């Protein structure tokens, strides 16, 4: 395969990278405002991982019980272990309601209450039933409805194009370079604004609920452009991952009243969160599970505990949780109406990501300086809505609401700004990556590297962390990064070259994982999803602040000067107890 010259050039006002909930919502907003928009996505839009979300989407509609945005805000702030920026959270809880009604008007088939309103159910960490849902395929119906709306407004999709590099110069974004997966060849997208909505980075872990596409591409690209990432150490582990597979059994199962039991058949959550029991936030339940497992109380001393649904009755399970039943039956041949299901904690959500301000503009540093024309939303972003720990159902809402806000910001930006010129050799970076993979000198395959990375990340940076483990991992990642330089791929063709894509994704995994490790090492406290056995307490005095991390030639540069925005009078940090 020969390296491509600039054969394909597109000029579009706005480019949206990623067609998950965040990307599509932004694209829709732009299209509705009559802006030219191109959506670049490496999988068909309906294949995006947002479709995997099951449980629900939060908004304080108060359809089923008393509720208010104020309460929603309080829960979110507390859930974030006070690391969430409260101006963002406030905007979020107020906009959430509008987002839901908009979705409903677009045609999202929500499950209904008897009197025909949108039904809501309780969810971990929320003090009131707040999760709007559609059986247990909430993300799926939202994603499909948004995609269909985009078809209605004739949004232009570049399906199966993968962004290989960002064109940023002098703190101004000028577009992206993307690889046409299907036909081969690099395309230049010259644009006024770019939105990064590429989803999470759970694929750095072995046991994960995330899809293959969640390789945190834009994180790697941001670091490569000498820009920082924020709060990367916070990775949420979900307590109900299917044993060995990591596939998620919806939290809705617990919402509907499932039990979690250990080897002795005991509902052990009573020792950890006596009030909320199984409905305590994910990090609490995951840690409880891991503790039970570590202390030999996993089922038969193995690495799993049981999720018990039997008392709900087959009818309710089939009606409310059909997907849970199906997944357990298909993957581990367990019929959850008759038997308990083996589960273990699984890497699930990435709180960290590309730093952005409340208008979703990407930040250059901790002082609030921005990169002009670059935006981010969804799981790839860190607006610090979720702080140190995300509450279930807040992320779909976050992706949709801030997708919309991003759309708005971008369409304003486009109106008052002209195209900036492209850098002199726009394809240089992308070509470099491709040729090093295709013409490399080594012998190693990317698969073995990835396997090693994921295994070790799960082992050393999992639910429980400590200094020693993390230092080991730091060594390891250096070694892996060196070995990556010698990786070579089997497939030298252009057409649908899966090998190339996977190898490229591995490159990103390796880059941001290092940042993740360094961030965790530096944060000498336990907060939210980040739990250190050597520093088991939360330390508000020293650590009530965000981590910004750059990758430099010499290693990772950290900066902890970015303050958390807290409304001290309303929500002073207090202990998180459930």
């Amino acid at each position, binding site marked *: 395969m020969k390296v491509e010259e600039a054969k394909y050039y597109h000029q579009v006002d706005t480019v949206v990278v990623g067609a998950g909930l965040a990307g599509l919502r932004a694209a829709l907003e732009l299209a509705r405002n009559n802006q030219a928009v191109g959506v670049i996505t490496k999988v068909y839009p309906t294949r995006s991982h947002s479709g995997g979300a099951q449980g629900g989407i939060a908004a304080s509609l108060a359809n089923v019980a008393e509720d208010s945005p104020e309460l929603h805000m309080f829960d979110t702030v507390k859930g974030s272990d006070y690391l969430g920026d409260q101006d963002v959270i406030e905007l979020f809880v107020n906009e959430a309601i509008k987002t839901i009604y908009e979705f409903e*008007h677009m045609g999202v088939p929500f499950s209904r209450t008897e009197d025909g309103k949108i039904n809501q159910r309780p969810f971990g960490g929320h003090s009131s039933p707040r999760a709007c849902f559609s059986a247990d395929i909430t993300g799926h119906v939202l994603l499909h409805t948004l995609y269909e709306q985009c078809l209605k407004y004739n949004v232009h999709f570049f399906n199966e194009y993968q962004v290989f590099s960002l064109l940023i110069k002098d703190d101004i974004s000028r577009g992206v370079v993307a690889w046409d997966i299907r036909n081969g060849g690099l395309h230049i997208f010259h644009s006024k604004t770019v939105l990064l909505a590429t989803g999470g980075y759970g694929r750095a872990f072995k046991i994960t609920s995330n899809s293959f596409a969640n390789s945190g591409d834009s994180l790697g690209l941001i670091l490569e452009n000498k820009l920082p990432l924020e709060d990367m150490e916070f990775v949420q582990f979900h307590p109900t991952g299917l044993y060995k597979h990591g596939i998620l059994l919806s939290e809705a199962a617990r919402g509907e009243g499932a039990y979690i039991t250990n080897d002795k058949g005991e509902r052990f959550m009573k020792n950890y969160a006596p009030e909320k029991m199984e409905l305590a936030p994910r990090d609490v339940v995951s840690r409880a599970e891991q503790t039970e497992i570590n202390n030999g109380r996993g089922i038969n001393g193995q690495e799993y505990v049981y999720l018990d649904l039997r008392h709900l009755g087959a009818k309710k399970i089939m009606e409310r949780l059909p997907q849970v039943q199906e997944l357990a039956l298909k993957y581990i041949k367990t019929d959850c109406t008759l038997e308990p299901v083996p589960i273990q904690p699984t890497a699930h959500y990435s709180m960290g990501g590309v730093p952005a301000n409340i208008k979703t503009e990407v930040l250059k540093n901790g002082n609030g300086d921005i990169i002009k024309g670059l935006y981010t939303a969804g799981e790839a972003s860190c607006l610090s809505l979720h702080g140190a720990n995300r509450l279930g159902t807040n992320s779909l809402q976050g992706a949709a609401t801030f997708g919309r806000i991003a759309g708005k910001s971008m369409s304003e930006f486009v109106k008052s700004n002209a195209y900036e010129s492209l850098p002199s050799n726009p394809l240089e970076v992308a070509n470099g990556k491709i040729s090093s993979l295709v013409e490399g000198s080594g012998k190693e395959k990317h698969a073995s590297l990835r396997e090693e990375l994921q295994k070790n990340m799960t082992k050393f940076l999992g639910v429980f962390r400590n200094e020693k483990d993390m230092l080991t991992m730091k060594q390891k990642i250096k070694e892996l990064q060196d070995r990556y330089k010698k990786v070579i791929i089997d497939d030298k063709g252009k057409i649908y070259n899966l090998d190339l894509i996977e190898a490229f994704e591995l490159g990103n995994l390796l880059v941001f994982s290092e940042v993740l490790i360094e961030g965790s090492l530096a944060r000498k406290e336990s907060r939210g999803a980040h739990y250190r056995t050597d520093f088991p307490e939360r330390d508000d005095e020293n650590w009530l602040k965000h981590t910004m991390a750059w990758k430099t030639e010499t290693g990772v540069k950290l900066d902890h000067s970015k303050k958390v925005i807290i409304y001290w009078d309303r929500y002073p940090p207090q202990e998180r107890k459930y």
Partner: protein
Amino acid sequence: MAKQKIKLKILRYTPEKQKKPYWSTYQLEVDQDSTVLDVLNEIHWNIDGSLSYRRSCRSAICGSCALKVNGQNILACETPIHKFKGKKLKIEPLPGFPIIKDLVVDMDNFFEKLRQIKPFLILKKPLPDKEFTQSPEQFSEIRESILCILCGACTSSCPSLWSNKDYLGPASLLKAYRFIFDSRDDGAMERIDMINDRNGIWRCHTIFNCMEACPKNINITEYISKLKVKIVENSI
């Protein structure tokens, strides 16, 4: 986990190199409870990196990985190999669609057909301040149809499509049902006008392959029948 030796045949095709697809045989050792996708990954990662296929969620919700294995369309990620009871696996891309490479087929036409049935609520009434009300009974009309993950397994398995590539196909018809029978929608007539066509719904001959293929067990044919009756009621 006990290991197991398996043999399989995969239909390979690289348009840059071959004129026609050809069968290629593999022999490997995998876990007993592996899925078809695990096997493909194993080959791609450790044996032959040039094998291409689509996959994303590996939890049967994204619809990327529909393939034909031993004569039937399935989702690779949710089908364990023991389902084929020790038979040699024969893996091919979805029938009825053009192959791009190996197991990857061109779905553009499939999505284009979806676009044409106007898959979005068409509203002629004013928007309420809050949500439209819809009773649980009205919701249950469309409950099954919203499970569709647009994997294409159904459309690809339909003999009517094989002989007529312009046939709209069961997936799009199901989508049309989902909107026509949504109590909030006002655009039924527009959509009916679209699917009431020589290459639309009337190419369905109740062959039921679509239902056999659907990984979500959606009773597609039933919904197509309901549509046919509705169209007949409306146009005669």
